[in-house]
């Protein structure tokens, strides 16, 4: 990346340094869902003997998108003999919060328009009223309040804002490369393998198994780009940004298959929006998980987290630890849907190796993330160029820009307060090093990292506008698809597992998007329903 000049780098680091040392009156509030509980479980705590026992047909362990979708499907099909153990954070990566009356995301914040293969996602959206009609048509009609409003995105480049996220090429040669790349991935959208399936499908499980295309998974995205002559630095920055944004890793580490999947898999359309439109709510995807949770119903939810899951006589026993009550509950179930991330499951599910998953060999790398929510007392003054958009990204930055929580409000005047949500994946070190840093970072360190892009854009005015900051720390935010992830035998085994324990989590796909998590939840529920 020769384009990222030394001057640019120095400006960026100086800006973040200034922000870090200068935050009078800005209180930093840390939020690390599941961190304490997870570490306690890892360290083999001595738990009290069960104070209650419950017998049930199916228990779902985990309340992220996968677990909630499984519960939603069971409830929707009239299957009542199940319960869901909520785990440390209802909604998992798709949760949100509230600051000063403004709802904001604490993780995933948008959903691309679901294509025809995502019937289960469309079902959820139709039930929510987000799809108003044409659920099974190529172009369903959506509730416009949820379709991202214009202006959608902009890029801070050369001290000015430009519409869209792709930087302009530096010269005609680079422009030509940009065009060639986007034409190629556009054509890949319809590309089918020798088994007749789309090469890049969402859910990824339905992608073609054609070895000629799967060979892409042996390369890093960077290697593939080099090999195909995509060397334009600005294009490469953008593609690296895309990998960080969706996979929590760099284009140097991501699998080429995954890198191309990002661009070639999404073919959803709407009757009343542009093709690239996405669905978003002020608090990200939180309304979707809240809807799913409501359909599961509070009566079927059990607080606490699975501490030990064992098989006995072809049945499952799950010991649920309820740290607030200082007690445990033992659940006897015919089937369990293990909807936890695999780094947790590897400590909790003793039989994981018997299911063919060797944590030492098969564990996908989990990227650490920061999601920083800044409460702004008033909107900051903007630089020249494109107006404040929903998604605002800084060219050359290693952070992922920020979204504006109040963007979707229908208001003639700007609201008095707003929240900017800045995202940063710790993608430049190994995940382990990133987690060590997160664990030891001071408030100033976290603030400096979290404000990177905002400091570049707004400079010293940032502390003038921001009065509170909440930083969500996710040590194991998402699985990163590195080369070989498509042929990971351990993941393959868990995907197909059909014993007393079924598995459902985006980790099974090797990368973390709503559609993948919901897919595995839906699949697991369908297996229960078939039995």
């Amino acid at each position, binding site marked *: 990346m020769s384009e990222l000049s030394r001057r640019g780098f120095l400006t960026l680091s100086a800006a973040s340094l200034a922000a870090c040392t200068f935050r009078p009156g800005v209180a930093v509030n840390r939020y690390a869902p599941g961190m304490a509980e997870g570490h306690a479980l890892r360290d083999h705590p001595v738990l009290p003997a069960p104070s209650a026992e419950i017998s049930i047909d199916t228990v779902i362990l985990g309340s992220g998108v996968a677990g909630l979708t499984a519960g939603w499907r069971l409830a929707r099909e009239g299957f009542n003999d199940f319960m869901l153990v909520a785990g440390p954070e209802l909604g998992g990566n798709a949760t949100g919060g509230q600051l000063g009356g403004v709802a904001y995301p604490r993780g995933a914040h948008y959903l691309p328009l679901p294509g025809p293969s995502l019937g289960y996602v469309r079902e959820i959206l139709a039930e929510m009223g987000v799809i108003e009609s044409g659920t099974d048509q190529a172009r369903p009609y959506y509730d416009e309040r949820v*379709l991202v409003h214009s202006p959608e995105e902009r890029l801070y480049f050369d001290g000015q804002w430009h519409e869209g996220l792709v930087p302009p090429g530096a010269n005609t040669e680079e422009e030509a490369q940009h065009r060639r790349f986007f034409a190629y991935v556009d054509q890949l959208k319809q590309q089918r393998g020798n088994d007749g399936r789309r090469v890049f499908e969402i859910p990824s499980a339905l992608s073609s198994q054609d070895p000629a295309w799967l060979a892409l998974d042996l390369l890093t995205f960077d290697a593939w780009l080099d090999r195909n002559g995509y060397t334009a630095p600005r294009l490469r920055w953008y593609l690296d940004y895309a990998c960080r944004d969706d996979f929590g890793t760099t284009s140097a580490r991501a699998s080429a298959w995954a890198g191309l999947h990002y661009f070639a898999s999404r073919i959803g359309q709407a009757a009343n929006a542009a093709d690239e439109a996405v669905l978003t709510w002020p608090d990200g995807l939180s309304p979707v998980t809240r809807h799913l949770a409501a359909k599961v119903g509070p009566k079927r939810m059990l607080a606490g987290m699975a501490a030990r899951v064992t098989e006995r006589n072809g049945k499952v026993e799950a010991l649920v630890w309820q740290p607030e009550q200082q007690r445990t509950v033992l659940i006897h179930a015919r089937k369990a849907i293990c909807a936890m991330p695999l780094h947790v499951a590897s400590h909790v599910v003793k039989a994981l190796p018997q299911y063919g998953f060797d944590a030492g060999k098969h564990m996908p790398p989990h990227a650490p993330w920061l999601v920083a929510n800044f409460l702004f007392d008033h909107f900051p003054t903007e630089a020249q160029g494109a107006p404040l958009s929903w998604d605002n990204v800084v060219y050359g930055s290693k952070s992922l820009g920020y979204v504006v929580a109040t963007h979707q409000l229908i208001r003639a*005047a700007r609201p008095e307060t707003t929240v900017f949500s800045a995202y940063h994946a710790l993608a430049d070190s190994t995940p382990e090093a990133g987690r060590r840093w997160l664990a030891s970072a001071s408030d100033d360190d976290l603030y400096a990292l979290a404000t990177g892009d905002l400091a570049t854009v707004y400079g010293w005015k940032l502390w003038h506008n921001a009065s509170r900051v909440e930083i969500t720390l996710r040590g194991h935010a998402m699985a990163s698809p590195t080369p070989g992830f498509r042929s990971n035998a351990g993941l393959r085994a868990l995907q197909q597992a059909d014993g007393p324990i079924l598995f459902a989590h985006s980790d099974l796909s090797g990368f973390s998007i709503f559609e993948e998590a919901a897919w595995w939840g839906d699949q697991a529920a369908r297996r229960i329903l078939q039995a």
Partner: protein
Amino acid sequence: MLQTYNLGPPLNRILILSVFVVASCGLAYELIAGALTSYLLGDSVLQFSTIIGCYLFAMGVGSHFSKYVKEERALTAFVEIELLVGLIGGLSATLLFLVFAWAATPFRSVMYALVFVIGVLVGMEIPLVMRVLNTRQAEFKELVSRVLTFDYLGALAVSLLFPLVLAPHLGLARTGLLFGALNAAVALWTCWSFRHEVIGMAGKLTRAAVVLLVLVVAFAFSDRMTTLAEKGLFGDDTIHAETTPYQRIVVTKWHDDMRLYLNGNLQFSSRDEHRYHEALVHPVLAAMPWAKRVLVLGGGDGLALREILRYPNIEHVTLVDLDPAMTKLFSSAAPLVALNQGSLKNPRATVINADAAQWLESNSEVFDAIIIDFPDPTNFALGKLYSVPMYRLVARHLSENGLAVVQSTSPYFAPNSYWCVDVTLHEAGFHTWPYHAYVPSFGEWGFILAAKHDHYRPPEQYALKMQFLDATSTQLMFLFPPDMQRRQVEPNRLNTQSLVHYFEADWHNVIR
């Protein structure tokens, strides 16, 4: 204090007193620039900090430059600098007003450049005076003490006079001119007192006289010049100008024509507003003599409200306008209250200051008629008020037999925008009846009447006396001649905001 203080020989005394004046002037320019910029751009902490910073820095630069003035020319240079400061500083506020009126973009650059130049000149004053006194064999410790004492006294005087007396009574432009004149007077006085030492005496005196004359003339015509600045924008005399958190409100008057501008866009002219407001209100209300409850969105000028309140059957009108300054102005300023006949204070009307969609979202009241009179969709935020979800929200507040009307830009000048509003209302589930009227100050203007039912008929008579509408012209309003025919356009969806793009392109074509 002056009596007891030893000021030294008379000529030195003159120099020391001039320090007092010069210091006041220096601080005054800084305060004027800060106040004026805060007034025009807002964010006073930012403006004052940066201006003071720039000014002090420039003074440092000036002090540095002062060393390049040769010893024998120090007094002459002082006189020249006084004249320059007087001219530039004196005219600075007036100049900034004019720059802001004609083009807002270079305003900051011009302002900082002016502050810098004045700062450099002011920065040279004190060092030069000290050098002059030094060569006149004043004792150094006495010299420093006296000069600085009067420097700071001058600052104290002006820092009290400026906010308490000068700014409120003279205004910023004239305060600037007054201090400019003081600078020039110091120059003149120094020149005269040291007539044997100053080089090129006659030229200096002439120049001082010219500067003084310019400033005095400018002072006399200052009021005219500031109004001229807004006149440059609006063409007429301004009777009210105010910047609110939401917009710049300007009301102008020329003979019997009163005009309202919001952010520089004409909202009405009192000469023909009756055409606009009759056309906006009566095709709806004359068709529903049973109507009791009406909602007005926008329309903070109270003129649509005035027309609505003419119907005795209307029991209550709720008016929701974003800007409290707007409704306050139109319910308190006498000529404006005369125009809207005090409609905003009418007991049958409730005025609510809120963002329209927010109010609709948080209320469940249903109305027989909804009159929508928003500003044109010139930006994405205003575009949201013309969108499918907004109209669906409106539909939730409209009774099954009710009627709504939307001011919809010009079907002649902005045909794509106009028909875009129509298809957007359709998309939101309304039946629509587009119509138009000629309003001389706007040109051909468009409205769209909308209902949940499909059996609206334009009124065939008006029970109330109209200035503009009659049965025949009403029928014609609903007909569109060939040059205003319907266009095939996309509805204004929030994902694309086509209306904002159409509006920009439409008016670009007109202006070109």
